[in-house]
């Protein structure tokens, strides 16, 4: 191994795995890199080595992943697990970090399939220990077999709220309540899209089934819930909320919330791809064509990283990106690509029919951003509150980048992943401008704080990587095959 690959795929979720296997079908040399030790991504996390004695409690969708992951493992495609990608240079060198060792991989094509993150929606007390994302609860159970031992309350909107509650009751976990924050008006807006959604598959039947099972297990499901607050001093003790005009309180040591998912755009923004605000999905999405091609030559996007369409469509968009890479490397003709891609495109179009319904049903209403109490932290890292952000806006800050300069919101180690979208949504509310006109928060490499010692070992010009002055685009650096790189690739094989 020379530290080169024809095609690098970043992310080993359904999109990345499908992309890699498709690329490999045409004889292209491909390498998959993922932060997680084993392939599967978020939905199929650790499906190949579950710590649970019986995974059937997690539901049939999880089991589907076993087939995909097994096919990938049998394909013999190079998989570099437990490795973070923290930079991509202009000439498509990918900077890796594994066990604190940095190295480079030179690729001719790069497919970014880094998935989604949960949408942050600040509320009072959301920084208390014991308050977590519902997806975090899932990661704990899938990766470690760890579940709440003394009860949990699930709150928010979106399919994951019900799914996690349902998985928990099947695992014997006490679910003290499900707080459904879906606004009543969303049902009216979603209703016209119901017929199309019914044609997309059995999504809605699954949701009804879960509700039914939860009610049968006597889990209280509160609807019309608003204004949740996590109460406690050193950790959460109770959750308070308003439902149909009454304030209620439930004691709980763990509160898991979920407000939908948005593409993880830190990487796509940092490489310089243009992003547009998708008003229906309520998130920024990297601009790409149906094959995943972006404005950056040789860099494609696939899966949830390019837009939220669920696991099946993630797999299909990975396949389309894989076909396009094979074409662009001369392994498939345009006609062959189109012919192979046609059934996939058709399946994807059908699957997407459920989206307009789901996107309206689970839309975060605009007034939520106004409702965020002044005392609630917006930037968890720098502890900048909603009140601070509003004050900065009154003083003239018009979007996330100015708010950052005024308040430090977004300057902490998460680099704005938790506050960028919130600040933009608040700015739209505060200034009355459409959010599409608000500046996209800047994202810069390195994507995670990198030790100076680690950089020194790579002989990188560290100055280029730090400081506000550096460009959004990765500096093109000429770094030869260094020792850690060989070490990494040898043990990855």
């Amino acid at each position, binding site marked *: 191994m020379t530290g080169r690959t024809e095609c690098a795929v970043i992310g080993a979720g359904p999109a990345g795995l499908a992309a890699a296997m498709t690329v490999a079908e045409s004889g292209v040399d491909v390498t998959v890199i993922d932060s997680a030790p084993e392939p599967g991504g978020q939905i199929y996390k650790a499906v190949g080595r579950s710590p649970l004695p019986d995974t059937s409690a997690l539901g049939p969708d999880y089991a589907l992943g076993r087939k995909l992951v097994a096919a990938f493992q049998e394909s013999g495609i190079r998989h570099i697990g437990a490795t973070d990608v923290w930079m991509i240079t202009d000439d498509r060198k990918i900077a890796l970090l594994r066990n604190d060792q940095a190295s480079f991989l030179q690729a001719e094509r790069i497919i970014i399939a880094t998935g989604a993150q949960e949408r942050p929606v600040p509320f009072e007390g959301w920084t208390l220990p*014991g308050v*977590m*994302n519902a997806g975090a609860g899932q*990661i704990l159970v899938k990766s*470690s077999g*760890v579940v709440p031992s003394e009860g949990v309350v699930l709150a928010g909107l979106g399919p994951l709220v019900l799914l996690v509650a349902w998985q928990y009751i099947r695992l014997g976990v006490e679910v003290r309540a499900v707080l459904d924050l879906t606004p009543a008006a969303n049902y009216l807006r979603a209703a016209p899209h119901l017929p199309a959604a019914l044609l997309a598959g059995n999504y809605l039947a699954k949701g009804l089934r879960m509700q039914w099972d939860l009610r049968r297990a006597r889990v209280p499901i509160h609807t019309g819930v608003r204004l949740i607050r996590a109460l406690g001093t050193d950790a959460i003790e109770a959750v308070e909320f308003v439902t149909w005009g009454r304030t209620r309180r439930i004691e709980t040591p*763990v509160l898991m919330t979920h407000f939908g998912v948005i593409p993880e755009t830190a990487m796509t923004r940092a490489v310089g791809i243009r992003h547009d605000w998708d008003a229906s999905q309520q998130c920024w999405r990297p601009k790409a064509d149906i094959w995943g091609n972006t404005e950056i030559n040789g860099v494609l996007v696939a899966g949830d990283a390019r837009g939220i369409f669920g696991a099946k469509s993630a797999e299909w968009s990975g396949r389309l990106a894989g076909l396009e890479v094979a074409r662009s490397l001369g392994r498939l003709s345009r006609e062959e690509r189109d012919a192979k891609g046609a059934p996939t495109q058709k399946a994807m179009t059908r699957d997407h029919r459920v989206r307009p319904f789901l996107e309206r049903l689970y839309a975060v209403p605009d007034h939520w951003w106004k409702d965020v109490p002044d005392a609630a932290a917006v930037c*968890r890292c720098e502890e900048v509150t909603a009140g601070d952000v509003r004050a900065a806006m009154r003083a003239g800050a018009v979007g996330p980048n100015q708010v950052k300069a005024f308040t430090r919101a977004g300057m902490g*180690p998460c680099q704005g992943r938790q506050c960028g979208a919130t600040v933009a949504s608040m700015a739209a509310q505060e200034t009355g401008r459409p959010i599409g006109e608000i500046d996209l928060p800047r994202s810069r490499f390195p994507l995670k704080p990198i030790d100076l010692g680690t950089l020194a070992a790579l002989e990188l010009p560290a100055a280029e990587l730090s400081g506000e002055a550096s460009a959004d685009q990765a500096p093109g650096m000429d770094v030869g095959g260094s020792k850690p790189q060989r070490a990494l690739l040898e043990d990855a094989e």
Partner: protein
Amino acid sequence: MFKRLTDASRPKVTVTINGAPVEVPAGESVAAALIVHGERACRTTAVSASARGPYCMMGVCHDCLVRIDGVPNRQGCRVIVADGMEITHQSGARELKP
């Protein structure tokens, strides 16, 4: 607050959490080990010294920062336990990187 549903026969490693030796299944993340051990908070913040614990478990939020083998600012949800690992809370401004 949290427990493991895993079977007891899985291979284990021994780590210390704030000095106390604890047996943990191999392959588990530091953050998972901490919350099963009853440590809901893993750090206090730089500005207000308020308690924080793991929030996203996927490397996004950086609220799970702990000191591992003497090195601060390690993301507990992204580091897998290893035999002999020393895990301690990290506190306040002193340790948080700018």
